[in-house]
Structures are given as structure tokens and as C-alpha cells.
């Protein structure tokens, strides 16, 4: 890399972010966090030197941004290959089709779809109440602080939602809120929060979660009901035919059953 060596922590992090462009978002966040932890600790450990003096030596200790970026990329590939629990890939087409029954992610994802209705209602109410109260309070002195607090809480809740999604579906989500540094003052941090596109998309996400949650919930419930009903149908038919329980079901089933159940001699 023939670009100029970074002379400040911000420059270093910016170069590292550029080097990692295109990588997984969670990986970029991890890498930036690690680098910032190290660089700030290194600067704090040398109070007699200026930040740029410390950064001058960084390439030989921590590594230049491109070296560090490639370390993260390499490790990510290796981790995916070696550390991730090896999923049994069924060889036959039949195995691949029915393999979903053995995949724990299938069940946690199903549970997540059901849960989405509950969280969706909570998020929706949170967003709508927050927005309407903010609008209502706007004329009062508590209006602006209330709105800022609503936005800040929204960011925390969205992080929790990310953790939930990662736990349930295995998709990587950000682990920590964006660190804004101690250099920024209180007002600058608030400005930063309001300028952050994610703050606003988060609120939109909360509102959208109600319709999405309803769709997920209905899909999951209908899918479960229909499949369980079809699984139970032949068993019920056989039991009813054998006279193990009567609900005048014999007639219903004899009309409802396809011919082959009776032909196979199960029913006499």
C-alpha cells in the first residue's frame, strides 16, 4: 500500500474500514473495535508521546491497516471452515429434503417467526407512542428531551433485536453500539445520533415489524396446522375405521379417504 501512513487513530480506523470494504458488516465492526481498543490503550500507555508519534510505530507493532485487514479476512475464512459446527450435508436428494427436520435452526427460526408477532406489537406500540408523544410534547419544554430519549432507547432496543435474531437464526448482527469516542461532547454525540441514518431506519423497522410479524406468525401457524393435520389424518382415519373411537367418523372418513387406504385392507 503506497498510501500515507495513518497519523491519528481516526485515520487508522478509516483506512482499516476501507481495507475491509466488502467484508461482513459484523466482521468490520469487530475489527474496528479491536483496533480502537488497542490504539487507545497504546496512546494511553505513552502519555509522554503525542498521538501521531505513537501511530508512527503502530505499523511495526499492531500492524498496518492492510495487514490487519487481511488477518481478519483469513481468520474469518478459517473460522467458518474449522470452528463452525459441521453441518451434516445429506448426500441423497431425499436426505437433503428431509434433513431440515434434523436442523435445529429450522426450529429456532420457526419459533422466531411466532415470536415476531409479540415483538412486532411491542416495537410498533413503542414507536407509535414515542413518535406521537414526541409530537404532542413538542410545544412543551420536555418535548425535545423526550424525543431524544425515545431515539436513544430505540437504538438500544434495536441492538437487543439484533442479538435475538442472531441467537434464533444464526445470522450475524452487530454486537455492540457504535462507539463514538470520548473526544465528542454531549451535544456532539446527540448530533451524531440524529445524523446517523440507522437511527431513523431503526424507527421505520419498528413500525414495519407489526405487519411483518403478522405475516410471519400467520405463515408459521398456518404451515404448522396444515402439516400437523395432514400428518394426523391417516392415523385418525385408521383409528376411526378400527372403531377405537366413535364420532360417527367412519362415515366421514369413508367419504373423505382416498380409495387406497381401503384397498390396502386396513379397513374392512
Amino acid at each position, binding site marked *: 500500500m503506497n498510501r500515507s501512513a495513518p497519523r491519528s487513530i481516526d485515520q487508522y480506523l478509516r483506512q482499516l474500514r476501507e481495507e475491509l470494504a466488502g467484508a461482513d458488516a459484523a466482521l468490520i465492526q*469487530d*475489527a474496528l473495535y479491536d483496533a480502537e481498543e488497542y490504539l487507545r490503550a497504546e496512546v494511553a500507555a505513552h502519555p509522554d508521546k503525542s498521538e501521531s508519534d505513537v501511530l508512527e510505530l503502530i505499523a511495526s*507493532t499492531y500492524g498496518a491497516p492492510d495487514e*490487519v485487514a487481511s488477518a481478519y479476512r483469513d*481468520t474469518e475464512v478459517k473460522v467458518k471452515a474449522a470452528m463452525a459446527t459441521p453441518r451434516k450435508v445429506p448426500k441423497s436428494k431425499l436426505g437433503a429434503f428431509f434433513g431440515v427436520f434434523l436442523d435445529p435452526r429450522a426450529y429456532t427460526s420457526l419459533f422466531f417467526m411466532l415470536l415476531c408477532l409479540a415483538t412486532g406489537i411491542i416495537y410498533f406500540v413503542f414507536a407509535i407512542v414515542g413518535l406521537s408523544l414526541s409530537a404532542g410534547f413538542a410545544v412543551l419544554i420536555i418535548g425535545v428531551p423526550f424525543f431524544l430519549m425515545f431515539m436513544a432507547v430505540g437504538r438500544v432496543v434495536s441492538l437487543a433485536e439484533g442479538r435475538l435474531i442472531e441467537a434464533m437464526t444464526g445470522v450475524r448482527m452487530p454486537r*455492540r453500539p457504535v462507539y463514538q469516542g470520548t473526544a465528542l461532547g454531549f451535544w456532539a454525540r446527540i448530533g451524531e445520533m440524529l445524523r446517523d441514518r440507522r437511527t431513523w431506519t431503526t424507527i421505520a423497522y419498528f413500525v414495519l415489524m407489526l405487519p411483518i410479524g403478522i405475516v410471519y406468525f400467520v405463515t408459521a401457524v398456518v404451515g404448522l396446522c396444515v402439516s400437523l393435520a395432514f400428518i394426523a389424518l391417516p392415523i385418525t382415519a385408521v383409528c376411526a375405521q378400527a372403531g377405537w373411537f366413535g364420532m360417527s367418523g367412519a362415515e366421514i372418513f369413508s367419504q373423505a379417504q382416498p380409495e387406497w387406504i381401503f384397498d390396502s385392507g386396513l379397513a374392512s
Partner: protein
Amino acid sequence: MDDSNERKFQKELNGGLVGLVLLAVLAESDEDLYGYEIAKRLANANDGTSIFKEGTIYPVLRALSAGDLLTSRIVPSYSGPPRRYYRITEQGRGVLAAWKLIWRGTRDFVDRFTETEPSRIGHSS
């Protein structure tokens, strides 16, 4: 040219060794350690310059943690973003013991060729 060859060789060697060294450092430590602290321990053990770039230990720490060989917790810090403190797990100790055996075997094997006088291997004619 020579320099880059050496660096490439060192980098290839480090691939698996970083994980081994990190597990060993954490197994010996009584307290939880965070990335910077571990990096400095490694550097101090080698006269202030670590054999591998300190930036490369962080992704490995995360990888070991993802493999349940380490546990981690986050502690706020005054100097920068919250720090992630690592501690070795029982599973990690088991893996470390196995890796140590592999490492000793590999080292002894390599030593057998590299430590002896050139005349003793190959043809001494």
C-alpha cells in the same frame, strides 16, 4: 526480496501458532486478560517486539471464543471502547494440552533436520 520471503515464511508459520500461544498465555494467567494486555505480555516476553503483529491476535481471540475455547466478558474502559476480557474454558485447556503435544512432536521432528550439522544428513561425500 529476501526480506519479504522471510516475512512470508514467518506469517505462514504463525498461522496455527498464534492460537496455541494465546491459549497458553490465558491458561497460565490467574486473571482474565484483554487483547492489549495479552499483546504486551507477548511483546515483553520477546524483548519488546512480538513475533507476530499484535493486530493478528484479536481475530484469533475471537475465533477461539467462537469455538468455546475461551469465554469473554465486556468491561467498560476509561481509555477507549469497552474492553473484551478473555478467560480459558475447560474445553480450551483440553485443546491446549492436545495442541502442545502436536507442537512438541512437530518441533522435535523439524529440529531433527535443522539442528544437526549438514554433514550428518544427506551425503557427506
